[in-house]
């Protein structure tokens, strides 16, 4: 194995990993505040990708310049996904907030299937090709190849993650999110409307998911109603690996998962790529169930 191959796979891994990280943030934010694994999050990402795709094609057809079409499509997809996330919480999860934990978990799986069916109704079962809005012409840097689309994915992801960390740690709303995650009752006593904070959490996580969806679709050049399943599962793995409930954990977990998968490709055939995510998940659950950065869950009794 040459060092160039390794470096190339690291670059590829970082690109894919940063998308996993964005999706993982959605899982971890919701878990942090509700201790709920929102299995429907992968579907929200899929809806974001398909919405943006349809819009982008339509805008391009109407003669809108590619960059503006892309930006508009992403913004609208973010709004759509935020609305879907907020509605799902309001309709499916909120009534179960004090129910045994199995109930919302099963509901989440149900919502996931429901959203897939809605996507089939709205978009159909076809594979759509995602237009090349940002150039994918290979750029050679030394012996490594990268394209502008991948560079934009990397930079955007880093910016979004930095922005989220800033929001959560330096703003009033972010502090309220952390307070609510820690103790909803006391947060209420402070005057915090916890339902509003929870809705905002879903909205932010879903909007990030929409962007991640567009990134995946543009990276692989396609989107389909089923794309949220594997992506969601992997991002969930990343969140668990990093320590679910922990923002840094989701980011680190996503990047590591992307790296493991892509570096692993040097050793095995491409069809086995998806195995890595789950080998990693099982290993983490056995040896470090609280995740790489996570705290022990017992602490939040």
């Amino acid at each position, binding site marked *: 194995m040459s060092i160039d191959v390794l470096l190339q796979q690291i670059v590829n891994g970082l690109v894919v990993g940063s998308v996993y990280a964005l999706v993982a943030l959605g899982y971890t934010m919701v878990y942090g505040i509700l201790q709920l694994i929102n299995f429907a999050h992968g579907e929200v990402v899929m809806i974001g990708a398909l919405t943006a795709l349809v819009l982008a094609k339509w805008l391009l057809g109407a003669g809108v310049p590619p960059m503006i079409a892309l930006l508009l499509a992403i913004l609208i997809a973010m709004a759509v996904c935020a609305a879907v996330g907020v509605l799902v919480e309001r309709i499916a999860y909120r009534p179960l907030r004090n129910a045994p934990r199995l109930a919302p978990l099963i509901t989440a799986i149900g919502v996931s299937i429901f959203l897939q069916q809605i996507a089939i109704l709205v978009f159909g079962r076809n594979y759509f090709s995602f237009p090349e809005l940002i150039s994918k012409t290979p750029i050679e840097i030394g012996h490594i190849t990268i394209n502008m689309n991948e560079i934009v994915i990397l930079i955007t992801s880093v910016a979004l993650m930095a922005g989220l960390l800033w929001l959560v740690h330096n703003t009033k709303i972010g502090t*309220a999110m952390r307070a609510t995650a820690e103790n909803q009752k006391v947060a209420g006593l*402070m005057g915090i409307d916890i339902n509003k904070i929870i809705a905002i959490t879903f909205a932010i996580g879903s909007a990030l998911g929409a962007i991640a969806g567009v990134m995946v679709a543009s990276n692989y050049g396609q989107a389909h109603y089923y794309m949220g399943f594997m992506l969601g599962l992997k991002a969930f793995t990343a969140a668990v690996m990093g320590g679910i409930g922990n923002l840094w954990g989701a980011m680190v977990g996503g990047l590591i998962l992307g790296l493991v998968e892509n570096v692993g490709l040097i050793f095995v055939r491409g069809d086995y790529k998806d195995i890595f995510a789950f080998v990693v998940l099982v290993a983490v659950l056995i040896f470090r169930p609280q995740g790489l950065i996570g705290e022990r869950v017992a602490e939040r009794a």
Partner: protein
Amino acid sequence: MSALLDVKQLEVAYGGIKAIKKIDFHVDEGELVTLIGANGAGKSSTLRALSGLIKPVGGTVTYKGQDITGIPSHALVGLGIALCPEGRGVFARLNVHENLLMGAYARNDKAQILREVDEIYTMIPRLKERTAQLAGTLSGGEQQMLAIGRAMLAQPKLLMLDEPSMGLAPLMVEKIFEIINLIAKRGTTILLIEQNAQLALENAHRGYVLESGEITLAGDAKTLLADPRVKAAYLGG
């Protein structure tokens, strides 16, 4: 003059079991009123019902002449009611400064909030030395000071305290009561829940004795302190 807080026929139940059985009491503006009682008497249940944490099954709570029965807790803060909950309830993973700011969540006057945070630091210097420390790493007494300071940042007209002396060493209890007295002197009306009857009655204007969910004695704090029944049950003879 009508009372600032008027509680009538309040009933609280968990499942079918009544924890509070039709109690009446009131707190006038500027007063420091204490509600004393043994473990399980229903003190915290009363406060939970007043602060919107649980819905009472009967009775009314009137504040400034307005019926506030069953209003959710986050909506009460804006009306001027703050609760310092049992067990302090500081946000362990937020630092001292962030905890204080959360107390002012319902407000938007940022400059004034920061001035009041400084006032809290002046009043409680121990907090100032620890602004960036995570609240979970504070001592029990410091956490109680933080919880009180945080509640004050809501600019409450009525401050309700649930057993601020719980689990603290005598010296720390003294400090906490100094702070409570200072707050009372500055004009905040206080409803104080205590198991430490001696201390509570020494500091309060009036008191109520709660036993198994019912108010059995009420009156002037000095009178209650001297009452043989109170002495026998709560003051060690």
